[in-house]
């Protein structure tokens, strides 16, 4: 059977219009596609993320069961749910043939900062589920404060002169956990997005990690109709790369024909306002090292 990712995009929706996300939020797109691929027989663990708003802020909800525990431990939610499903199937409470997909979705702060131990624990145990980090590169739901995935020089309310440190490379850290699947996603590349989620869904038990690049009009200071353009430029400049790591094997899934200069991406965003030529060269060097370095 030829599996066309476009098919998934025309499937039934479990994520509805009328959500309370900001105009131009890429999270709505991402969650909608995730839900289309995972379908009705899935259960969500939502951690702290802007995506709490459409999923867990009363009266909004998904059309599937979902649980919000706390900011950090949505990976542990995967562990508890998948263990419960195994024992309840052994005891015949849940039919053995029924496929229930457990997934978590959480923000970059809850994933890369406060929940890092929980994430690493669930990955090391290879607990069964899909984990989506919605990486909008700052604590956006609390009003734009830096996280460890905020890129260097970016303005936030807690880095008013620009962040000093570089962005933490979380997908590489997750790949080092020797889990079956790690992938990066972008809302500018829906077919790549959907194909990867389908692949992880169908690859059998284990921990699968996704990081969704999430250009945030509110926090990054760009007009809300430019979300997809910013997302695409991130990939075309190499600021964000699309790849997957399947059982340790690294594959680039989209390679720009010719990488654009990083300034093309940076200049669209108010959070990088005031960068000097030297700062931009530093960012360009970071991208070049990252793209040409080991493992790329």
């Amino acid at each position, binding site marked *: 059977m030829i599996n066309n990712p476009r098919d998934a995009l025309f499937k039934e929706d479990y994520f509805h219009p009328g959500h309370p996300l900001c105009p131009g939020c890429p999270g709505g797109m991402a969650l909608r596609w995730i839900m289309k691929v995972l379908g009705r*027989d899935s*259960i969500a663990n939502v951690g702290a993320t802007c995506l709490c708003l459409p999923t867990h802020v009363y009266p909004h*909800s*998904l*059309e599937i*069961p979902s649980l919000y525990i706390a900011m950090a431990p949505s990976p542990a939610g995967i562990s*508890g749910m998948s263990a419960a499903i195994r024992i309840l199937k052994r005891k015949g409470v849940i039919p053995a043939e029924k496929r229930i997909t457990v997934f978590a979705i959480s923000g970059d702060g809850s994933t890369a900062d406060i929940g890092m*131990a929980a994430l690493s624990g669930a990955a090391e*145990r290879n607990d069964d589920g899909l984990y989506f980090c919605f990486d909008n590169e700052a604590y956006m739901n609390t009003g734009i404060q830096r996280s460890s995935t905020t890129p260097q020089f970016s303005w936030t309310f807690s880095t008013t002169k620009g962040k000093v440190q570089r962005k933490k490379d979380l997908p590489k850290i997750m790949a080092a956990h020797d889990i079956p699947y790690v992938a990066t996603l972008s809302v500018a590349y829906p077919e790549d997005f959907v194909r990867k989620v389908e692949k992880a869904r169908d690859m059998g038990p284990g921990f699968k990690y996704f990081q969704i690049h999430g250009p945030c009009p509110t926090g990054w200071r760009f007009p809300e109709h430019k979300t997809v353009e910013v997302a695409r430029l991130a990939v075309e400049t190499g600021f964000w790369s699309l790849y997957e790591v399947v059982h340790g094997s690294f594959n680039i899934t989209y390679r720009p024909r010719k990488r654009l200069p990083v300034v093309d991406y940076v200049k669209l965003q108010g959070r990088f306002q005031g960068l000097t030529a030297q700062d931009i060269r530093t960012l360009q060097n970071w991208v070049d090292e990252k793209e040409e370095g080991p493992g790329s």
Partner: protein
Amino acid sequence: MATRKMLTGNYAAAYGAKLARVEVFPAFPITPQTPVMEKIVEFIENGELDAEFIPMESEHSVMAAAVAAEAMGARTFTATSSQGLLYMHENLFVASGIRLPVVMAIVNRVVGPPNTVLNDLSDSLDQRDTSWIQIYVENAQEVLDMIPQAYRIGEDERVLLPVAICFEGIIISHYMEPVEILDQDKVDHFLPPYRPKQVVLDPDRPMSLGQIVMDDTYITEMKYQQQEAMDRSKAVIREVDEAFGDAFGRWYGGLFAAEWIDGAEVVLLTLGSLASTVRAVVKQLRDEAGLPIGFVKLRAFRPFPAQELRDCLSHVKAAVVLEKGVSIGAGGPVFLDLSHCLNRRDRMPLLIDYIVGLGGRDVTFEEVRNIALTVFEERHADSITNPVRWHQVRGL
């Protein structure tokens, strides 16, 4: 067939969990809880217990995994101590707030610094506001007996709250006692499988648990429902104690066990392992000196049996609390709760608090006897200036 074995309190907890046929067991090792975890893992690995063990990377994640597993409808158990319990703190509210009857053995240990593996009750007493039912037990047999009871209490549709069975580290957790291991068939009859009707994550009838609200929508009402459930749990704890006694021949008294109360002028109230010592002192003072002294072993700290204790203690001249915990700046947590429930316009017993046994410091028969005699002398005083007494401070 029931059998008798020499067991530590920790192994008794593990046997209790096995008898309750727990299904998911997330845990993280911490002294003195560790043997609970090791024994349950052994039960699972040798096929005696069909359950899923999840070796979590922290207690915070333990309670999150417990919440998630219980929300799926699996009977979930865990155990912890001290700093581990405090590390869970946030998620304890989640278990009770979503109304999930997780059961946990709390192997009491000091909260440092100074850090030690010795015991007092300061770790669990300070979790009193998390809306967990807390029951304190006296010995290994009571540990084992209370695990199946805890599930029957928590899973009751009138309750649906998590339950902690608290017992002191080392003194109960690590010393061996003869323990009757209950007959599995009888436990199965006493405690049927848990298949939740209300709160469960099931794709066939989706629901969102742990909702976020942006205004005061339902917050007061949901907390009030927890309060009502906690109130209802009092009757359930008593019923379950009765049912357990009928089935297995041991009754523990439900919320608290009162002895020699009729005509008592002074009552000594305590909880945990100290109950054995205090009971023996009271018995001796009655038998040998003929003093009108009674004894209360408090079992349920949450729900706090306020009305019931008021009824029990209304006639006494003085009530003394001996407790291995303190809310610094106020007094012992049990004393503070007892103060509010005995508070009456007309007459209130003299209420005195002895902070004892912190950090596992031994509380001897002689010390308890001296406390009892001291208070007996004071029983007619109109008022006292030092109701909260740090009894064992060296050099004071």
